């Protein structure tokens, strides 16, 4: 079997779900021409009238998706870059996240919002951001951020089958970078589950997206030095899989949390909070966070950009320190 890239996984899954269910449609900027990352290439010709170019207006892209999902369609919105979702914050926070709760489930929104996030592409402030922490703080929204192509496939389908608004985060740097032989590969199809991707006794690394791959690379390197890491692919960022998180933290007693989002207020704080409350007695060292520094993300010039981003070298260094604690 051929390997599949993250982008191919997304593309073929969109193709499949459009074929499988007439209610599915795509709405976003430049989708008819294939999308700026080519994730919808060829789909508008193949599914006439079901791949819609939206005007350049993110609040309405989200809001119209809400209305169409309420009506009974299965819309998949695309926000061209996660950085531009901010204008839709109100529609997601005030409306989508609460539709079910405020009607005790009588009304609900089977909708997906896909968006490319993350840095490492020389995209500067507005084409590189991590937005997950904002939405991981909204009860009622599910946030999914896979790392491997096989999970992209299964979780995008799960997102579509879910009767709740799902923010589906696609790390843009991995679109073409990460490839996987998907047949036989582990594929999580339940939203809300994290996966222990690698087991080791010395410390536990939590990551997602590009950072998961960097963490695995660091773990590989450290193994050569005799330091064995457990690596957790979080997969779902809201709601968090507290059981797996605690199990993995307890297993080693040393925790390193990695994200490229800025440190303060990032998801790492919540993970640390959960662990420091519920796995305190098993901790053998300070909970360490490795994250983007607290500057407006992200600098453009590649020298500063790579200084901003955590990577395998920085992860390995932090892990070494922690292992030695």
């Amino acid at each position, binding site marked *: 079997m051929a390997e599949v890239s993250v982008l191919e996984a997304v593309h073929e899954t969109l193709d499949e779900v459009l074929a499988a269910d007439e209610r599915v*449609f795509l709405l976003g900027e430049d989708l008819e021409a294939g999308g700026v990352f080519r994730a919808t290439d060829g789909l508008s010709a193949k599914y006439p*009238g*079901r791949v819609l170019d*939206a*005007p350049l*207006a993110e*609040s*309405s892209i989200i*809001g*119209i*998706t*809400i*209305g*169409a*999902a*309420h*009506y*009974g*369609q*299965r*819309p998949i919105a695309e926000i061209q870059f996660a950085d531009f979702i901010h*204008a839709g914050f*109100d*529609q997601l926070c*005030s*409306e989508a996240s*609460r*539709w*079910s*709760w*405020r*009607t*005790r*489930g*009588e*009304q*609900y929104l*089977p909708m997906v919002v896909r968006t490319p996030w993350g840095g490492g592409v020389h995209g500067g402030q507005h084409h590189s951001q991590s937005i997950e922490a904002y939405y991981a703080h909204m*009860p*009622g929204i*599910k946030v999914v951020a896979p790392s491997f192509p096989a999970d992209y496939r299964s979780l995008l389908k799960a997102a579509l*089958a*879910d*009767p*709740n608004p799902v923010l589906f985060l696609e790390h843009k740097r991995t679109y073409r970078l990460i490839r996987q032989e998907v047949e036989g590969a582990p594929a999580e199809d339940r939203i809300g589950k994290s996966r222990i991707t690698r087991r080791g006794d010395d410390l536990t690394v939590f990551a997602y997206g590009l950072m998961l791959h960097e963490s695995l690379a660091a773990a590989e390197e450290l193994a050569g030095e005799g330091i064995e890491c457990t690596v957790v692919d979080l997969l779902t960022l809201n*709601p968090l899989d507290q059981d797996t998180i605690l199990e993995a933290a307890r297993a080693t007693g040393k925790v390193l949390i990695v994200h490229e989002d800025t440190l303060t207020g990032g998801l790492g704080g919540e993970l640390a909070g959960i662990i420091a409350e519920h796995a305190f007695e098993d901790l053998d060292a300070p909970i360490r966070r490795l994250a983007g520094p607290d500057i407006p993300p992200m600098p453009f010039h590649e020298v500063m950009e790579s200084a901003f981003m955590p990577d395998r070298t920085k992860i390995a260094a932090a892990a070494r320190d922690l292992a030695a604690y």
Partner: protein
Amino acid sequence: MTASQTRVPRSSEMLDDYLLSEEQLEAMYRYMLLSRRLEERMMTLNRQGRADFVIAGAGQEAAQVGAGMALKAGTDYAAPYYRDLGVMLVLGMTAREAMLNALGKLDDPNSFGRQMPSHWGSAKRRVLTQSSVVATQLVHAVGVALGAKMRNDPIVAFASCGEGSTSRGDFHEALNFAAIHKLPVIFFVENNGYAISERTEKEMPVPHVADRASAYGIQSAVVDGLDAIAVYQTVRPAVDQARRGAGPFLIEAKCFRMWAHSSDDDHRRYRPREELENWASRDPIALFRQRVEEDCLFPPEDLDAIESGVEVEVRAAAKWALDQPDPSPDDMFGFVYKEGDDG
């Protein structure tokens, strides 16, 4: 009004199609009255400390009931705003339900005590759940209409708001998208001249909300929101046109807010007394009664009977609702996420 704005054609032929039957006129009167009496009772409950918050449509009943009656209840989708008790009654909400809502009771079908009063929602009546954030609902209605158009489902999506709410970006984005895709959406703006304390000239630089339709190349109309029949005769053809695929329609009903913004507001701070006095003679419900009486459509006794019927109903509904269970603490949990798969 600019050139691109049109009133709905009013040829006599056309009007014939939209004449109201005796039953409809009766219903119109009944709904307006029911809305008013319910709100009066809610205000009393508020002053008695038994209802935390009231936001009312008093003065806007003709607009609401006239517009609501132009819809196919149970078929068309509605995203009404907080003042639209009149619309909700036309769409089937009962006096008891309205009272449950006003009291935040567990069985309030709108939000089960989870939201503030007047935040409507009803799956079975096709009323989209509403938040307090003004104008977001306009975009949702567009989404509903888009879905329906994709499925060739001949429904219309009705969305209403106040004139102040048309200042928000979501108004622009909603009308723009609906116009591009020629979607069956009726944007119904109840212009009561105020956004809380701000007069219209603080909110917009043009005299009529309907002037904004030309930015989207869509049809619009201005109608006297104190005249329920005129409202119906304006909205109904717009609904029919939209249903036939003619695209969205923006209708502005010139209304009057009789009371303060809400039970938390004191409008004497910012409204000249004469304004309220001048308008008092133009209560839309009284105007309606006067007109049907002058036209000898109903004997006064019939109208009196409606009035006393409504009064009995409201009193009974309030009494009943007060005895219904309050939510318990644990009722706040559940349904954060809808369970199961989407079907």
